[in-house]
C-alpha cells in the first residue's frame, strides 16, 4: 500500500488552524513531517503534511494567506518539528508565525530584508528562462 498525503487534503481557513491541529494531534497524528509554502501571486498557500506512525495515516492541511496579512498561529507548541520548519518558511516567504518561541531567520543572514522564494523577488543576475 502506498499512502499519499496529498490525496487526503483538508482546506481550512487560517483562523481554525490551531484548533484543527490540536484535534488531529489528539487523534494520533504525532508527526508533523513538513511545512512549506507556495507563492500563488495573489496569496501564499501554506501546506502542512502530517503523518501518524502508529495508525499509518497521513493528511495534508492547506490554508491560504492574503499577501497583506501574512500571519498565522504557530504549531511549535504541539509539534516540536514545527519550530525550524516555520522559521524556514518565515525566512524564505516572510510568513509571520504568532507565538513562535524563536522566530528568526534560519538560512539567510539575519540582516536581510528580502524573502527570496517569493515570486516577486528578483535580482539582476537571474537569467531569463528560454521558452520551451
Amino acid at each position, binding site marked *: 500500500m502506498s499512502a499519499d498525503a496529498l490525496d487526503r487534503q483538508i482546506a481550512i481557513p487560517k483562523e481554525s488552524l490551531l484548533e484543527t491541529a490540536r484535534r488531529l494531534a489528539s487523534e494520533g497524528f504525532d*508527526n508533523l513531517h513538513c511545512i512549506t509554502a507556495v507563492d500563488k501571486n495573489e496569496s501564499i498557500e501554506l501546506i502542512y503534511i502530517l503523518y501518524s506512525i502508529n495508525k499509518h495515516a497521513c493528511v495534508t492541511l492547506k490554508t491560504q494567506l492574503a499577501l497583506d496579512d501574512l500571519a498565522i498561529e504557530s504549531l511549535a507548541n504541539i509539534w516540536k518539528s514545527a519550530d525550524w*520548519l516555520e522559521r524556514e518558511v518565515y525566512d524564505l516567504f516572510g510568513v509571520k508565525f504568532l507565538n513562535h518561541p524563536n522566530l528568526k531567520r534560519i538560512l539567510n543572514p539575519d540582516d536581510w530584508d528580502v524573502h527570496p522564494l517569493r515570486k516577486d523577488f528578483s535580482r539582476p543576475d537571474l537569467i531569463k528562462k528560454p521558452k520551451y
Partner: protein
Amino acid sequence: MTWSSVETIKENIHTEEFWVNMGPQHPSTHGVLYLEVKLSGETVVDLITHIGYLHRGIEKIAENRTYTQFIPFTDRLDYIAAMGNNLGYVLAVEKLMKMEVSDRAKYIRVIIAELQRVASHLVGITTFAQDLGAFATPLFYGFREREKIVELFDDICGNRLTYNYMRIGGLQFDLPKGADEKIKNIIKYMRPKIDDLESLFSSNAIFTARTKGVGALSKEKAVNYSVTGPNLRASGVKWDLRRDEPYLCYDKFDFDIPTGVNGDSWDRYKVRIEEMRQSLRIVEQAIGGLPEGDPTIKVGRIIKPEAGESYMRTEAPRGELGFYIVSDGSAYPYRMKIRSPSFSNLAVLSELAKGIKVADVVCVLGSLDIVMGDIDR
C-alpha cells in the same frame, strides 16, 4: 591570605556561565555548522544551532531549470549519498507524471540506492569515531571500503561523487558489462569488512564508554521532532519507508529493520552497522533476480507534466527525503520544496545537548550523522 577550607574557597570564587563558539570552521561539526554553547563549567546549559552557512538557494534554482536540468543539483544536496537524492527526485517527478519505469530500471535503482546506503553509513560511522578521538585510523578503513563502491559508480556513470545517473523515466545508462560480477564481488568483500569495523568499535573500551547512554532520544520525542531514518529506528520505532510505504520493488525483497532500545549514540551506531548488512542482503537478492530489458529513458529532455502537485518521500540513507513539486504545466517546476532528513534530525540537537558535557556534544552530533548540504540546501 591564610589557608582556608575548600568550601570557603568555593564560596569566595566568583563563577559564571559562559558562551563558547563551535564553528563554522571546526573539525567535528561535519562541515559549516555553527553551535553556540552555553557552559557551566563543562556542562552544557544551553545550545543554539545556527545553520545556513551552506545555503545555496537550490529551491530557487529549481524554479529556473527544466525538470531534467535539475537532476545534477540533487546530487549536491546530500553529497555523501548522491544517488539517494537522485532517486528521490526522479520518483517525485514520475509520480507527478504518473509514469511507470521498466522492471530492470527498478532493480538497478534498488541496487544502486542500497550500495549508496552502505557507502554513506561507512562515512557516517567512521567520521563519528574520528570525532570521538580515534584520529584517522577508522576513517581510513571506512574510506578504503567506500572506495570500492565509489569505483563501481565511477564505472557505471563516470563520476566519483556527483553521479547524475537517474533519469525521469529510467536511467542514463544500463549497467556496463561485467558490473554484476563486480557487485557480487563487492558484497563478498564488504561483509567481512563490516564485521571488522564492528569489532574495531564495539570492543573498544573508549568508544563504548563514550557512546553508551549519551544523548538518549526517547521514542515520543523522536517522532515529535520528526526525526527520521536510522536515528528514529535507534529510538525503538520500527518505521522504514522501504517496508511501510514500499516504492520501486522493495516489497519483493526480504530484509529486516534493525531497531535500537535506548536511542543513545551507541544505538544509532549499532543500527547503522546492521543496516549496512541488510542493504547488502537486498543487493544480493536484487542482483540475483535482475530482469532483462532496457532501463534507459524513453521520454525527451523537455518534460511538461500536467498542472498539479506531488509529494514523494523515500528512505534516503539519512532518513526520509521528501520532494514536494508543484507544476503549472510548463517545462519548469512552479515550486519545489525539498524536505531534507538532516534538517529535522539536527533540530533535535539542542534538546539532546542540555545537561551533558561539552565533549559529548560532539559525540551526539557525530552520531546524528548530518550533512550540511542536505540541511541548508
